[in-house]
């Protein structure tokens, strides 16, 4: 009796928990879909959950871009409208959101996602329906390999990983580095591989390889194993919430090596969670607010004036994403998706907040990587590496 009711119970639990994950309301999905006076840009993003800052910051910046364009008279005489759907950082939700943006909200183009794993879920749908999608900051190479309708406005991981590996080897003079990656995350896996390849090729050794899964809260087993491996630093290409907790765990276990990471660290929560434990760590990013062009400084000032906080690099890419889409629509001269796609593919020397954007034949721009150093709860410019 007991055994049977247990079995039934696990079924019931499984059904119940998937049920709860499907009910995500749009952040503000109201309005009249497809009204002729507007151009709808659908944005799917993690507005809540462990990567909430990615979605929120990107969304704020995207709306800032739309407001600025609308203040100048819009695009092709029409107002831009951003419609945002929450993915909660969940792959199935990302796919649902893209379907809904196309079918219900009648989006002309789609912006999203930040996380590569989620772009890989949403991208195939945009590709199949032939709606151009621009990922602001998914750096995994597989994202734009989905098809000719998927673009991005950031660099890709083989380059980001290589920059950090060479930085670790030549600037920090490290010989042995441990890797701690998120095995449920395409971004993290890709970046870990890229780093490993470049670090080993330049004469370094990987002292230990450990992993975790997104949503884990306990990292003491992995950090304890790394501690005994003789590594001088830990490469943690994960997202900020887990990275903050990993830094705290490392400090608690008496591990004094710096952590190294990628653009997934970029959120103020990294510092509220990680605190002093992150001092002396480095991560790569898309731009440094304290070391930027006039265009970026204007963006930072506008963002601050509107929202009362500093944008992150991911926010800047959300802004660039909308601007690049708007620029393509202008050049296409009509609201037809194939024409917009062709115009996006022809983007050349577009002056964006995060640097010049020229789409290569694989729909990836070549951009420079900024390395930031963490000191006293702030990330400061350390180096800039061009492709």
């Amino acid at each position: 009796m007991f055994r049977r009711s247990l079995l039934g119970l696990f079924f019931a639990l499984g059904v119940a928990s998937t049920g709860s994950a499907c009910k995500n309301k749009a952040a503000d999905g109201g309005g009249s879909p497809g009204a002729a006076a507007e151009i709808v840009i659908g944005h799917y993003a993690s507005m809540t959950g462990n990567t909430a800052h990615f979605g929120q910051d990107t969304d704020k910046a995207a709306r800032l871009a739309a407001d600025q364009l609308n203040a100048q008279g819009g695009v092709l005489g029409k107002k831009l409208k951003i419609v945002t759907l929450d993915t909660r950082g969940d792959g199935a939700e990302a796919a649902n959101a893209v379907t809904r943006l196309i079918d219900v909200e009648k989006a002309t183009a789609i912006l999203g996602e930040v996380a590569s794993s989620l772009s890989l879920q949403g991208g195939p749908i945009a590709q199949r329906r032939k709606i151009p999608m621009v990922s602001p900051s998914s750096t995994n190479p597989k994202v734009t390999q989905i098809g000719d309708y998927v673009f991005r406005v950031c660099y890709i991981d083989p380059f980001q990983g290589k920059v950090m590996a060479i930085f670790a080897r030549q600037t920090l003079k490290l010989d042995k580095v441990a890797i701690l990656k998120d095995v449920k995350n395409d971004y993290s896996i890709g970046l870990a591989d890229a780093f490993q390849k470049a670090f080993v090729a330049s004469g370094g050794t990987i002292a230990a390889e450990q992993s975790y899964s997104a949503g884990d809260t306990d990292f003491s087993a992995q950090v304890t194993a790394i501690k005994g491996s003789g590594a001088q630093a830990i490469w943690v290409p994960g997202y900020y919430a887990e990275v903050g907790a990993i830094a705290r765990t490392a400090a608690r276990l008496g591990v004094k090596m710096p952590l190294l990471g990628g653009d997934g660290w970029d959120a103020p929560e990294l510092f509220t969670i990680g605190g002093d434990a992150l001092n002396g760590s480095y991560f790569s990013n898309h731009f440094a607010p304290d070391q930027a062009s006039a265009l970026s400084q204007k963006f930072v000032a506008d963002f601050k004036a509107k929202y009362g906080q500093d944008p992150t690099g991911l926010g800047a890419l959300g802004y660039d994403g909308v601007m690049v889409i708007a620029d393509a629509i202008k050049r296409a001269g009509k609201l037809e998706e194939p024409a917009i796609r062709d115009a996006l593919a022809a983007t050349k020397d577009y002056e964006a907040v995060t640097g010049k954007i020229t789409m290569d034949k694989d729909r990836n721009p070549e951009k420079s990587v900024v390395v930031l150093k963490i000191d006293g709860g702030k990330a400061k410019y350390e180096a800039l590496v061009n492709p």
Partner: protein
Amino acid sequence: MSTFLQQVLNGLSLGSIYALIALGYTMVYGILKLINFAHGEVFMIGAYAGYFGAVGLGVEGYGAAGFPLYLALVVLVFAMVVAALLGVSIEFLAYRPVRSAPRLTPLITAIGVSLFLQNAAMLAFSPNPRPYPPILREVRFELGGVIVTNVKLTIFVVAIGLMAGLSWFIQRTWTGKAMRAVATNLDAARLMGIDTDRIIRATFAVGSALAAAGGILFGLDQIMINPLMGMLTGLKAFVAAVLGGIGNVRGAVLGGLLIGLAEQLTAGYLSPDYRDAITFVILIIILILRPEGLLGVVRPEKV
């Protein structure tokens, strides 16, 4: 060797948190034969009560000087009281009306309460993870190559203290004896003049208070809390209760420690990918080989 000892230490501290939660499952099951699936959410609300209690008392203002110990105790007691009230309300509003229904009905009700609390918490506290406030200032020292922190020690001390208190409560006090009587036979206990409703209420209150203590210790140990933390942790604690023998208080403690150890050693030596899987592998094995649990007794089904 020191790496191994460190993993064991981490496993035991995680395990004692599971044990605290497992006690609530096992006590309620012992009395009502109900698996209270909302218990994981009581644990989560307890952690949040501790969070807001500590923030309300201005924990950030103390800075490096550290939060005074008596205020930390106030936070602990506050969270335990909040959780006890929540547990009693859940029993009164959700379980009492279906107490005489077939066993599956309260079980489904419990899952409903669990989902309700998860979503209510996401609405009220925002779904984003929060770093836990420094209720205890961390002091670190080394013992033979193993890093021990006062947080880990506190987890042991608080967990063991509460479990000893519970055992005293169940064995020595009148209410505890009545609980055991109700667990043995509810109708007979009522005939002997025991107010069974009151005893059931007390059981929920005590179990929920222990879960809240577990929630605070979890927050201190795991750095972050979020509204869905009760789901997986609650399931693991439930497995711990089944492993030890559901309905058996000592079994719940043993089960909790074993699950914590198994999880940590799997993560450290096999692969962290299997840390959650191992718990459920243990559940399957125990259900096949010894469904009554390690310390459980086989009771013939009543006809």
